[in-house]
């Protein structure tokens, strides 16, 4: 109680949002100790896990996301809104406390809110509520995804578009042959041979060409032309001729 009220008062008086968030974390821890003092240890642990662990960290995360240096403007758009709000909230608090002071509730015997007892109530009497809450959590997650989803800035570039644009600028529509294709050599630095047996210079990687690590394949062409049927060298013959 001594911890919770001053920490939550920072909600009204602290200037920076991060300070507010950290003091609300303190207030949540104070509330968790209050739950444990009220014989509800399960809820105390859940309070710490859910509120200080998940909810307030998400608040801090969003604060970092939108920028912590956003100052509040103190200009009032509704005249006297601050005083109306303070009087209204204070009046609400005084009203609630006066109502509480007039009731007297007899204290019954202690029932510890242990996890097994809570689970007994939760999954027998309130099992339908539990399932509805599961659906609510899933729809909340989907809603958050939809809400923060950005429409794409430019239309999606499909493979068909890429191929069409490549044909449009006059590039060769078929794939380049792999190095070593139709060749008698199985290495990346040897150019592929076309059906006439001439080396295709494009089939060797540009990097190897820059480094002068390629072979031109001329010696392999010479071996092909030595065959007795030089105009149609097929791949099986080339492989066998090794």
């Amino acid at each position, binding site marked *: *109680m001594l911890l*919770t*009220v001053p920490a*939550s008062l920072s*909600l*009204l008086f602290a200037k920076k*949002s991060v300070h507010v968030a950290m003091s*609300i974390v303190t*207030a949540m821890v104070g*509330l968790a100790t*209050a*739950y444990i003092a*009220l014989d*509800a240890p399960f*809820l105390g642990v*859940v*309070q710490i896990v*859910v*509120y200080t662990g998940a*909810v307030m960290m*998400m*608040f801090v995360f*969003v604060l970092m*996301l*939108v920028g912590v240096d*956003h100052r*509040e*403007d103190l200009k009032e*758009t509704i005249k006297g*809104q601050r005083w109306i*709000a*303070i009087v*209204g*909230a204070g009046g*609400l*608090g005084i009203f609630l*406390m006066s109502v*509480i002071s007039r009731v007297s*509730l007899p*204290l*019954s*015997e*202690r*029932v510890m*809110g242990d996890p097994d007892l*809570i689970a007994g*109530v*939760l999954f027998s009497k*309130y099992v339908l*509520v539990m399932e509805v*809450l599961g659906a*609510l*959590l899933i729809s*909340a*997650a989907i*809603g*958050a995804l939809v*809400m*923060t989803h*950005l429409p794409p800035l430019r239309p999606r570039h499909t493979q068909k578009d890429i191929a069409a644009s490549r044909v449009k600028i006059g590039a060769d529509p078929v794939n380049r042959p792999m190095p070593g294709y139709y060749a008698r050599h199985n290495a990346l630095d040897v150019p592929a041979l076309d059906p006439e047996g001439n080396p295709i210079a494009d089939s060797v990687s540009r990097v190897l060409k820059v480094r002068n690590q390629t072979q031109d394949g001329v010696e392999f062409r010479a071996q092909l032309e030595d065959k007795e049927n030089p105009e149609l060298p097929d791949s099986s013959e080339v492989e066998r001729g090794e």
Partner: protein
Amino acid sequence: MDPINFVYLAAILFAIGSAAVLTRRNAIVAFMGVELMLNAANLALVTFSRIHGELDGQVMAFFVMVVAAAEVVVGLAIIVAVFRTRQSISLDEPAELRG
């Protein structure tokens, strides 16, 4: 300590949270005020559960926590979406849309 004192604490926290919602301009801080009000209601539920000696109040407080977690997810997503379009999370500026 008499558990009724925790009901007083819940009333005070609820008043502080509502004052924060009414006065603060920063959307995130106002949202934290909503969270504090939800927690005050939770504290009242748990206290009455202790006073009556039944577990239903604690189960209700557990449900409120789950709903509050879902609400935080959607609310913060709305804040992020508003910040993306308006570059501001002030609660006064959407009121200027009236023109």
